């Protein structure tokens, strides 16, 4: 059955792209033709990739549809805040798409990913140590490595390694021993080791993300409810100890409960974010008509506040729903698969996306304490974008396999 072009969802993505970039173009005087190139490149990349996925039957087409919408909104907002970053983001998007195809092919046609657990562990630990030794501190977190002028955030890579590492266990028989330790305890121990390293790097957001992902995976696979309970207690204990001992965490909790007492200092970021959301109202001030640039780090962690200011609460809700559908598609892929490595990987990736979105959006709107982490596919940043596309490539490959079998 043929649908008319206008009824296909990709048309909506293209329409938003054209409208938003046209608005950006017209508003700024003198006219900046780069806007059109940026919009055009994004549109072309989206259309080409979508067409390839569709015609070569590379699995679930909705995953990429949602992502292309998120990318479009992300680049529009980044361009609106800072032009040069917007152009850089287009470059990262091009690289990310290439990585996406590579990962897709590698995952689709190589079958032994489930047997490399020691490699993932070694790589992760290597990265941790490298970050500690040659890492650079950006924004109070020592989690960047600079290679040849480009810096990348190691924790973004580590989170994918972590999913692979977990899946080697959850996707396998789950009753082996490592050094005379039952496998499930070994995994637990390693998770806490990951978290320990991340805490050393002041990566509160990633620490939370790793734990939440591990916990939900354990909930899904593990029948030992006592272990779940023990984990919950441990998390509570660690959180409480952190609150008592670490000023970083105390400040975050304080600023969650009441940021208004210290607007000028520690509460500055979150209050600026709330000012932006309040300014937007339900319908937003309109693209280019707000002042999101006064929020620190608005192009990365706080981009959701900028979206709410200019596209309104309704715009923000639409973004949240897109993520929800994306995650639902991911978990649906996992549901269709039999027990195994693929199922576990697709679970891990979907759950991690879900939590990452929840943690940063919840933080920016002050629903939960703020822990810095990027908003997948929307925030500016090469590491975040490329690793998000690595995850997408894997999901895509798994869904393609499922379709082929």
């Amino acid at each position, binding site marked *: 059955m043929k649908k008319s072009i206008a009824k296909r969802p990709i048309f909506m993505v293209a329409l938003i792209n054209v409208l938003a970039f046209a608005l950006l173009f017209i508003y700024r005087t003198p006219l900046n033709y780069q806007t059109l190139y940026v919009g055009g490149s994004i549109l072309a990349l989206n259309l080409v990739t979508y067409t390839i996925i569709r015609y070569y039957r590379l699995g679930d087409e909705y995953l990429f549809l949602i992502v292309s919408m998120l990318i479009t909104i992300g680049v529009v907002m980044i361009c609106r805040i800072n032009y040069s970053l917007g152009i850089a983001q287009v470059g990262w998007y091009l690289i990310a798409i290439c990585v996406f195809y590579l990962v897709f092919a590698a995952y689709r046609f190589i079958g032994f990913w489930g047997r490399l657990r020691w490699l993932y562990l070694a790589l992760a630990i290597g990265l941790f140590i490298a970050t500690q030794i040659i890492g650079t501190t950006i924004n109070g977190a020592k989690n960047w490595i600079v290679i040849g002028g480009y810096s990348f955030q190691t924790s973004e890579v580590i989170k994918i390694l972590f999913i692979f590492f977990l899946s080697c266990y959850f996707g396998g028989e789950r009753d082996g021993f490592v050094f005379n330790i039952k496998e499930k305890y070994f995994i637990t121990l390693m998770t806490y080791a990951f978290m320990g390293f991340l805490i050393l790097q002041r990566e509160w957001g990633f620490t939370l993300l790793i734990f939440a992902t591990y916990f939900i995976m354990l909930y899904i696979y593990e029948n030992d409810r006592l272990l779940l309970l023990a984990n919950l207690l441990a998390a509570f204990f660690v959180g409480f100890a952190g609150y008592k001992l670490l000023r970083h965490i105390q400040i975050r909790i304080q600023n969650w409960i009441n940021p208004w007492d210290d607007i000028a200092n520690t509460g500055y970021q979150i209050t600026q974010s709330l000012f932006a959301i309040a300014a937007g109202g339900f319908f937003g001030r309109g693209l280019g008509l707000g002042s999101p640039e006064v929020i620190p780090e608005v192009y990365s962690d706080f981009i959701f506040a900028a979206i709410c200011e200019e596209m309104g609460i309704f715009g923000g809700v639409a973004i*949240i729903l897109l993520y929800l559908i994306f995650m639902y598609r991911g978990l649906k892929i996992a*549901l269709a698969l039999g027990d195994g490595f693929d199922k576990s990987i697709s679970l891990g990736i979907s759950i991690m996306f879900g939590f990452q979105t929840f943690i940063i959006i919840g933080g920016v709107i002050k629903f939960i304490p703020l822990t810095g982490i990027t908003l997948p596919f929307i925030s500016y940043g090469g590491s975040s974008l490329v690793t998000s596309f690595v995850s997408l490539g894997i999901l895509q490959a798994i869904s393609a396999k499922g379709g082929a079998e």
Partner: protein
Amino acid sequence: MINKRIIRVIFMFTLMFIMLIGYMTYFEIFQSEAVHQNPYNKRQWAYEEDITRGSILDRGGVVLAHSQGTERIYSYGPLYSHVIGYNSKIYGKTMLESKYNKYLLGQDILTQVFNLSGDKKVGYDVTLTIDHELQRFAAKRMGGYSGAVVALNPKTGEVLALVSKPDFDPSDQNLVENWINLTESEKFPLLPRATSGLYAPGSTFKIITSAAAVENGLGDEEYMDYGTVKIGNTEFQNYGKKAGGALDLKKAFAISSNTYFCSLGAKLGGEKLLAFAEAFGFNRVFDFDLPLEKSRFPAAKGDEDTAALAIGQGEMLATPMQMAMAAAAVANEGVIMKPHIVKNIKNSLGVTIDETKPQQLYRAMTAQTAEKISQMMVDAVKSGTGTAARISTITVAGKTGTAENEFLGREKNKEHTWFVGFAPAQNPEIVIAVMLEYSGKTGGDLAAPMARDIIMHYFGK
């Protein structure tokens, strides 16, 4: 089993995301307004630079405040400092400038959606129910006294005049130059006395005591007035210890006999008095256009307490606005219409954005009781303590009051004086409350003639 749990996880995430959406909606509806107005919000300043703030006009269209560029000009200087307030980048916004800021800036959902052009925007104009001529006259007539004048239309609740003294020049320049003086002065020029000042209402409260008595079947009580009466361990006195002889309610009201009302109050009891005070608006709040302090009436702890409360003394405090509302209840057949000061809001094209419609606020008493009290108030002006408010061509109803305060016993001649009333008594068009702080004379000597002149001015005599 695994798939079952995955489905539960899907539900969990759906719930989490719905909570995010719910919280955002909650934030927008209940918190965003306060957040938006936060003085640290740089956006607000930025927007205001681009908007010509709307004007504020009296009911007849006289411009009371307008903007030239970013400068706010108050045409009548201090006259509206306690109504319009001020709009200062440094000291913030108060009164109507604060409460109606959103409209004065022309920011509501409609303009946000439809005003897509980047042009210089013009805010909405706010028209008040205030009668500028009356306001001007009332302020002038008050002279150098500290205090307040409140004038209402009892049938609609429209505020016709709202004067608080001392006042101050609300221009930004004056605030910058005199801020320390204004905030530290012992005369408290920044206090809007008419709406936020709390005073013992004295004998004007006898209006409410009388209403309570009539409605509780004590309208025909008679007492002998010997000039003083002892209730519990306290001796209550009439003004100047004058003995009134045998009194009924009507006569006692006209000469404002304290001994009569103390006895009546004690018989009535604290609970019934409290119930009526609350029916008239004590201990209650409503959303007025300006910050309105809650008038207080305590639960009495025995007959002595009740007796003191019945004559408007004791731990009771009322704003001049509250006492004007009490008189308005009598004037409007027992119903207090909701006081309001903003008549309508129009955009720069003259399209009405919002309009205040008269609304019933409280029913204080039955129409029959109101009729009785009204007659008593007419008598008080005709032949009682309020004769100074008499006008030959218009029947004025009123009640005077002279209230003790914290200076009692230490310094003489520091009483607050009151007059509340309305005219014409048969078909009231204006309710007035005059309160002068620490003025040291009786309400009959000082406040009543002031009220008379203001009423005469209103009717153009």
